[in-house]
């Protein structure tokens, strides 16, 4: 009987332009979840380290999908976006399935409802936090000339803690415990809002730590040391509260590489 680890994979180009579905044929029951606009996935409910069993995603928006899917799947997707066959079967080798499972770990923990894990990239780690309530907090803030700061639900002006997965924190050389606060202000009559995130640098080697919203636009800001306190790392991320609650992503690595990803 087949499981996702067998690597028998089906890639379908769906009717929506740019949307593909990737299925790793498994008989194990799955849990489905729409992560955000342009990304839905399912993971085997009984496999806490498994690869995604189903992925449905819009490709062509950023580099995230290149990075998370890996070169083999991206080549297949490029192939079926042209004229001709709209579906393709491929066999992923065991190491490729394992790499897929490692890269998608943060979404797997979101879907299966376990604490946030690190996803492993070719040269670093990443993770994503859902349900922080960023947009809700921002909407609850008054719009004033001076910035108004407030953290998550019912916490007044206190900072909201955020526990980074240990491998990601180690790779970046920061304390696992970070914190965030939302702000909203009028600057020259223009409304601005977003979150400020603080991390604490540990002595010794570290890679850059980046934060971004988990959306199709794929934009990132890098944490910079505070001029007065170099152990304090600060990132400011503009957030315009719109439809839905954005998830917050973190990653190490100097750049978000594309096309040159190693599969294992």
């Amino acid at each position, binding site marked *: *009987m*087949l*499981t*996702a*680890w*067998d*690597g*028998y*994979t*089906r890639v*379908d*180009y*769906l009717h929506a332009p740019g949307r593909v*579905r990737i*299925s*790793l*044929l*498994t*008989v*194990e*029951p*799955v*849990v*489905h*979840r*729409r992560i955000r606009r342009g990304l*839905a996935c*399912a993971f*085997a*409910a*009984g*496999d*806490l*380290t*498994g690869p995604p*069993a*189903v992925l*449905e995603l819009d490709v062509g928006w950023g580099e995230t999908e290149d990075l998370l899917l890996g070169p083999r799947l991206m080549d297949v997707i490029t192939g079926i976006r042209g004229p001709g*066959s*709209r*579906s393709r*079967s*491929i*066999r992923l*080798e*065991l*190491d490729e*399935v*394992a790499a897929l*499972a490692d890269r998608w770990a943060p979404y797997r923990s979101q879907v299966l409802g376990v604490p946030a894990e690190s996803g492993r990239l070719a040269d670093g780690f990443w993770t994503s936090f859902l349900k922080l309530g960023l947009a809700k907090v921002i909407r609850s803030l008054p719009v004033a000339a001076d910035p108004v700061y407030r953290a998550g639900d019912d916490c007044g002006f206190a900072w909201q803690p955020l526990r980074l997965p*240990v*491998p990601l924190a*180690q*790779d970046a050389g920061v304390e696992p415990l970070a914190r965030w606060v939302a702000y909203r202000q009028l600057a020259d009559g223009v409304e601005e809002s977003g979150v400020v995130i603080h991390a604490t640098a540990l002595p010794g080697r570290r890679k850059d730590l980046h934060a971004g919203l988990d959306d199709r636009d794929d934009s990132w800001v890098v944490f910079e040391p505070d001029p007065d306190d170099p152990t304090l790392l600060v990132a400011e991320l503009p957030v315009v509260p719109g439809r839905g609650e954005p998830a917050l992503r973190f990653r190490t690595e100097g750049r978000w590489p594309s096309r040159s990803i190693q599969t*294992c």
Partner: protein
Amino acid sequence: MAEPFHPDLLRDAAARLPGIDPGAIDAVVERGIQFAQRLSRPVPEDAYPLLAVSLRAGIDDLVLATQVIEEVSRPELPPVLVTMVTTAVLSRPELSDPVAAARTVLNRAASRRFPEDGPGPGPLLWQIAEYRAALDELTGSEPDLERYLRDLTASPGTMQAFAEFLGGAELFVQLTRTELDVPELDEVVCDGTSPDSETITSWLLAELYAGTSSSQRRVVTEWLTGLRSPTSQDDLAFLVDRIRRVERRLACCPSPAPRLDLPELERVRPVVSAAVRNGLSFPPLWTDRSAAINLAASKLRLETNTATWPISMLVASVVVRSLHQDVHQAADPDRPLDCACGADLHSLRTPRRPDEVCPHRPWPEPGRVEDLTTLARTARVGDENLAQLHLKRYQGLWREWIGDARDRMD
């Protein structure tokens, strides 16, 4: 369809069958014409003698299915699904070109919408439902994907149940039946003498091939002769089981060793003999042990209903290791979260001494790969005591291979 088929060649072949009478020859040719129509593909000239035998024996369904499977198989498609789709197509006589029909079914594009958030059947069941929908469309009936998925979810979830759902299960069962034609070894009494390398070689060959079907023997032979890719998933759990049989046997090789009479042994014996003389170096079964553990654990969950994820990971972590690797009986609560070899954070790994526990050892590196602490961490069970308790209580597949680890842990 005007495909080349030569009834005269079939008639000649049938006439050469021993003890056949003229009436039976006519019957064979008559069936042969129907067969050729069903196949809708040329019949190669050298296939007529075999075809005549099959037609006379009334197993032309099997021959037809084998022909279609050969035509539509591709390495990226699971063989069991190709067989299932073929037998489903052949169970619908109105599909006049089974090869084309099977290809259409196998290539059908996904049509189901991504479901709402929550639990649901695995994508293999979606795929079977899509196959059924494609078969419906080919035969002019209206598909009902959601009902199919409900039916499949309620089924026992075996390949045979899926074949019954698609139609043609009887033929599917015949085609996928595996018969163990080499018997299991008898119990032996260890005689305490130290065996020579010839005896050990014979014993290992017996363990590698005992209790197998012909297709399993091919898997063993391809592995031993270096034809198997170390990144392949196919039959990995079966081969890990063979490794453990070999390991168990090495402790007890009384004289004389059993002699198997198998044609492949001529080719394989020198390989195993060389391995015995060179420190038991068999070709690698994996490049990344943790990936092999995950694959084996997923198979254990399907085979053993009671194996939850932690238990399947515990058992697989104990069993999936090369002949030179073992499980340490102790716990090490002081072990840091990162392995000393550095594989957790960096792609480059530093080899460790054999007496250190390192779960990341590659296939040929001898030494300890697990202890109770690494097992408890990998399987995410609370602590070492719980890991040990789970292993002690385990009664599912591979229980005989954790017995050693279990006993040593006492």
